[in-house]
């Protein structure tokens, strides 16, 4: 009954290895791997020249630029504010702190479409936040800035939840040593603590960035979706599909998948490196 994989597997008395591994691989293949490989086959069918033509189409390039640019800006903002929020949650005790800690996960729990329409209502020129900003001449909704706002919302927990456990493990002795050697508090924070937090910050940045590039639901309501200006790549895929232009949709998807997998690889090696260097990921 059990699969015979003697060379691949360390002997164990726990049964069910063949059954569970077989089921896992079958399920993953049917649901994830075979469907995903469809993008690769369809791209290969296009041929190199046709793929290049579709992938370097002016509107496609503009959409990719908007997606990656806004995701980069949002992830950078999230590193700053995520580090601040994590620091406050880890180091300070104040009323409502547990509530705030739980609230950080809201973007994971709130459906993206709900976040999208809520942020649009808030940041529209007649909204609670958009109104005062519009009076100052700053338009957020229906501009690329709106995309950044939506991606900051979506990406925040990735940074906070990556940095928080690392901050909790900082040994106070290091800070005391720095202080007794005459460093000011600011110098201790930026020259002693920040370097050991940087791998976690970078990982959080990469996770938030990767999520932001592919994000769709929370962005399309607030973006305005003007081609060449505030049209994101996932939306262009949807538009091409609605035109039954499967070739163009596949080409954009292939570019996005290639970049996301490269990002994933980078995140994994970053975590492996930081585990070796600092003993934590």
């Amino acid at each position, binding site marked *: 009954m059990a699969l015979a994989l003697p060379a*691949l597997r360390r002997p164990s008395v*726990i049964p*069910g290895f063949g059954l569970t591994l077989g089921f896992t691989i079958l399920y993953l293949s049917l*649901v994830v791997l075979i469907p995903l490989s469809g*993008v690769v086959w369809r791209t290969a069918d296009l041929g190199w020249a046709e793929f290049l033509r579709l992938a370097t189409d002016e509107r496609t390039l503009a959409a990719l630029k908007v997606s990656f640019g806004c995701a980069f800006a949002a992830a950078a903002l999230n590193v700053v504010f995520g580090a601040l929020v994590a620091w406050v949650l880890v180091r300070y005790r104040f009323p409502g702190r547990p509530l705030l800690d739980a609230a950080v996960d809201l973007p994971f729990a709130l*459906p993206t479409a709900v976040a999208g329409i809520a942020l649009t209502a808030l940041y529209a020129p007649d909204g*609670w936040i958009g109104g005062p900003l519009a009076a100052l001449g700053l338009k957020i909704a229906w501009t690329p800035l709106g995309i950044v706002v939506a991606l900051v*919302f979506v990406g925040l927990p990735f940074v906070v939840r990556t940095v928080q456990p690392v901050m909790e493990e900082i040994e106070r002795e290091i800070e005391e040593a720095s202080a007794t050697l005459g460093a000011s508090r600011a110098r201790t924070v930026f020259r002693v603590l920040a370097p050991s937090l940087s791998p976690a910050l970078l990982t959080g940045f990469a996770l938030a960035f990767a999520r932001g590039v592919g994000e769709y639901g929370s962005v399309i309501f607030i973006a305005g979706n003007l081609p060449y200006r505030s049209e994101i790549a996932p939306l262009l895929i949807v538009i091409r599909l609605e035109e039954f232009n499967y070739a163009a949709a596949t080409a954009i*998807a292939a570019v996005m998948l290639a970049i996301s997998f490269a*990002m994933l690889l980078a995140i994994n090696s970053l975590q492996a490196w930081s585990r070796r260097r600092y003993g934590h990921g």
Partner: protein
Amino acid sequence: MVDIARTLFFPGLPAAGASRDCTSETPGVRAGLIAASLLFLALFLLAPLAAVFAQALSAGFGAWAAALVEPDALSAIRLTLLVAVIAVPLNCVFGLAAAWAAAKHEFRGKAFLISLIDLPFSVSPVIAGLIYVLLFGAGSAIGPWLSAHGVQVLFAVPGIVLATVFVTVPFVARELIPLMQAQGTTEEEAALSLGASGWRTFLRVTLPNVKWGLLYGVLLCNARAMGEFGAVSVVSGHIRGMTNTMPLHVEILYNEYNFQAAFAVASLLALLALVTLVLKTALEARLGGGAPGRVR
């Protein structure tokens, strides 16, 4: 007076004049940092949540309820529940099987398998929908054959379920694998050596040990399954009353400028998110430390 206010609002702060810890910031800096993060979280997290409920109830409680019992909304709620009832148990069984194989056994390629399980998290939801359109759409090999035999996958419930299963594959497995790895195999070995069968060992030893972790994974899986928008939007076809889930219904109402109804349906999803957060926090207390380290 200042001291009283200080202890009331910032009980963690040392009293004025007390010697200051050299590993902390001055009280002024502390208060400033706390205020800055409160302001940031209020603007980006709490305000959107408040806006959903404010807009949903803007025309009164009656209008809110009316938007929810309208036939298209009811059918969207039913479809969302149906999809979650199919997708969550499937991924639950998958998660248990994957965790049993990966956490209780040592084999070559294990790290690779675990990263494959996480793969759907790094794929844009729109691409998750697209791959099923490519697989079952007009230009594919299986799609036309299936529809000739009366099975419709795209723009129908099976496609919505498949897309939802894809985006929620990792949730249960990624909770269970580290938990079961940390628990080791000694208890299972003891049960087996006392004569219990493999199934009995799993049901009576392993499952009770991981029940809170399993529930945690199911909770997150369910929240995503009910709230998924991008992947489902690509495969659903947006047929009102037929293939509309709750998030898609929100979009349709919103694009029709029926904002109050859109926010009413959205408020139901926001309630689901709040319940999820409360249960998640309670479960993290049960699961003990390490919980805040969870990403996604």
